[in-house]
């Protein structure tokens, strides 16, 4: 017999461990989620440590989404009109985290107040025991107003606040610092911009154990390869020991996959595309799986069918670890 020497990579660096949710010091979560800690590339347990499996989050919006795919509307039904019920339903479907979007605070979609936002967050916190990621409406002024109010009202819950971007990081980081939360640091598909934002956040005194890195997700067929390669480069840099790339990575897969034509169009598309019922989930599953291979630590999904498929995949990929 010929002996085969298996090439094993020994990396000097490791991804930071980041914990979401808390059950003490003001926190009321019944479960917490820790991600990161990898000392090798995704799922290569034969050569390094993979202490935490990637976590699955489900996106919940604080108002009934007007523009969502009919497949998503069918999957969640009436719960789309009540973020608390929707979140509880998502947890039943296997969500380990809830990504709550405060869209109704957007000036164009209701312009609800920071007080309203706090009430919504409270209701969702009461409805589920899992940790939350809380996203502002996506406009600079309102994001700051709403996220600061939410951060103060939920002190100690160890939520993740987003988006934390170059233009607003001071406010969001300060809100996280003062109230024991985390930030979701997003940069536009670029290794150096991601590093730079981590440096800026770190310079403000927030420990990097409280930073999740969102490299900006491109969906399958819509720039996925850019996200994939940037994530591979970030993860390789982290393992090589570059301290400012060692954050766990979060990918907003559901939002990107389901807003493409493939996730929305039932009619008037080529026969080769298949039926929307399969196509939307296929788009989400394929995008998510590809990004897991590049190092995603948290996947934010939209469809319960994708949650089930990804949970089964992660059971398989992490069973030896």
């Amino acid at each position: 017999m010929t002996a085969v020497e298996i090439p094993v990579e020994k990396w000097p660096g490791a991804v930071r461990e980041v914990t979401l949710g808390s059950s003490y010091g003001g926190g009321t979560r019944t479960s917490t989620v820790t991600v990161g800690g990898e000392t090798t590339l995704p799922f290569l347990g034969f050569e390094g440590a993979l202490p935490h499996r990637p976590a699955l989050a489900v996106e919940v919006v604080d108002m009934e989404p007007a523009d969502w795919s009919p497949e998503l509307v069918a999957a969640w039904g009436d719960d789309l009109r009540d973020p608390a019920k929707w979140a509880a339903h998502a947890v039943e479907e296997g969500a380990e985290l809830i990504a709550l979007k405060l869209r109704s605070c957007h000036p164009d979609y209701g312009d609800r107040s920071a007080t309203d936002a706090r009430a919504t967050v409270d209701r969702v916190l009461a409805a589920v025991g899992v940790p939350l990621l809380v996203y502002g409406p996506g406009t600079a002024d309102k994001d700051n107003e709403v996220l600061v109010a939410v951060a103060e009202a939920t002190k100690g819950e160890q939520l993740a606040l987003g988006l934390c971007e170059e233009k607003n990081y001071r406010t969001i980081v300060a809100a996280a610092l003062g109230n024991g939360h985390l930030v979701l640091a997003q940069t536009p598909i670029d290794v150096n911009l991601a590093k730079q934002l981590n440096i800026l956040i770190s310079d403000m005194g927030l420990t990097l154990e409280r930073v999740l890195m969102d490299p900006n997700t491109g969906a399958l067929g819509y720039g996925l390869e850019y996200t994939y390669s940037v994530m591979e480069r970030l993860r390789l840099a982290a393992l090589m020991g570059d301290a400012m790339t060692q954050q766990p990575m979060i990918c907003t897969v559901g939002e990107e996959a389901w807003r493409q034509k493939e996730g929305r169009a039932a009619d008037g598309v080529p026969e080769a595309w298949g039926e929307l019922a399969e196509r939307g989930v296929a788009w989400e599953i394929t995008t998510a799986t590809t990004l897991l291979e590049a190092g995603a630590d948290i996947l934010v999904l939209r469809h319960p069918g994708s949650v089930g498929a990804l949970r089964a995949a992660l059971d398989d990929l992490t069973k030896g670890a």
Partner: protein
Amino acid sequence: MALTGLAIYKLLPKTNCKECGFPTCLAFAMKLAQKGTELDKCPYVGDEAKTALDAAAAPPVKLIAIGAGERAFEIGNEVVLFRHEKTFYHQPGLVVRVKSDDPQLAEVAGRVAGYEVERVGMTLRLDGLAVEHAGGDAAAYAAAVAAARAAAPGLPLVLMSDDAPAIDAALTGGAAAEKPLVHVATAANWQAMADVAKKHGCPLAIRAEAGDLAGLVELSENVRSAGVEDLVLDPATTDLAGDLVALTQLRRLALKKGARALGYPILADAAAPTWQAELVRATQAVAKYGGVVIIDHLERAAVYALLTLRQNVYTDPQKPIQVEPKLYEVGTAGPDSPVLITTNFSLTYFSVSGEVEGAGVPAWLLVADSDGQSVLTGWAAGKFDAEKIAKTVKDSGIESRINHKKLVIPGHVAGLSGEVEEELPGWQIMVGPRDAVDIPNYLKNVWSA
């Protein structure tokens, strides 16, 4: 792994006879290292040097062709573990498996051959059909393969059987002309399988027990010594975790350790009970080093997703697919028609033009030269800024074709509207949607001349 000039020099006669046309053996060696000349220019070189140089010149993952004629596909010849290091060259063949006793065999074969889908100007297709020997004797198997060939002429095949006589019967029955991949030689049957593959000049897949790479090396050496040069490795893993470890280790061994016995493309079997689980397995194989990916479920949506993924992953990261930057007319545009501007990244262009066309509103689409970058990356890199937008508008001659001066810029660069207005005096700059998918609504309900 390429040899240095000095390493080659050591293998030469070192007589400086000049018969190769170079002044010294060292100069000749240096030129050889740069692949600027041929070793056979030296009349005195020994066999040892020839073997060493041939081995060094061979690619770490051998290029293997499956099929013959127009639909044949090539796999292998890969040189990196990560696409950003250079690129992945030969996309994996996506092959649908059907059992030889399936009453729907001919129909499935026809569907596989006929499946095609357009994406960013390219036609994506399935690559082949695997006919798995399920019951029946060699003659029955040969008949099934013949039926598949009749239903899908020219479609590359994978012949799957442990029984060498069955494979031989199918190849002798005519399939040999199409150079199918013969699957599979194992420790138990390799001699007979190697003989059949050699006789018909077909590539051969080899399989050891899952995780037994030493067994795979031994099989590789055995079938090569029996005269079969074109191999495909089947790691025989049955789950996602096992697949990834095997695919990674085999690619690393070929690229980093120069393991000649394992320097072949890899076959990844994505079999799973549901189409969703199969899609996950196949996705991993496409992203991570699969050379042939076998699926059973002919679920169109999943096939479309996999073909799209393959196109994404195998796009050269240094050369984004581009379209010609110029003025495009969508539908029959006139003087009242809206003018939209975007970048010349093909995906951006095809998304935008597809949506404008779908909206049923004739329009002028200006495509700026952003070096093939999308709107956001082009903007970030300074390739799609106010100046570039203004220049594109001026150079296009659009002004003489319209009776208004309104320009719709992508929502992602809304922040540029003031600067563009300064660069284009007299123009009104309108901010369009961020995403192409929202263009129809915009053109129908927001835009007005």
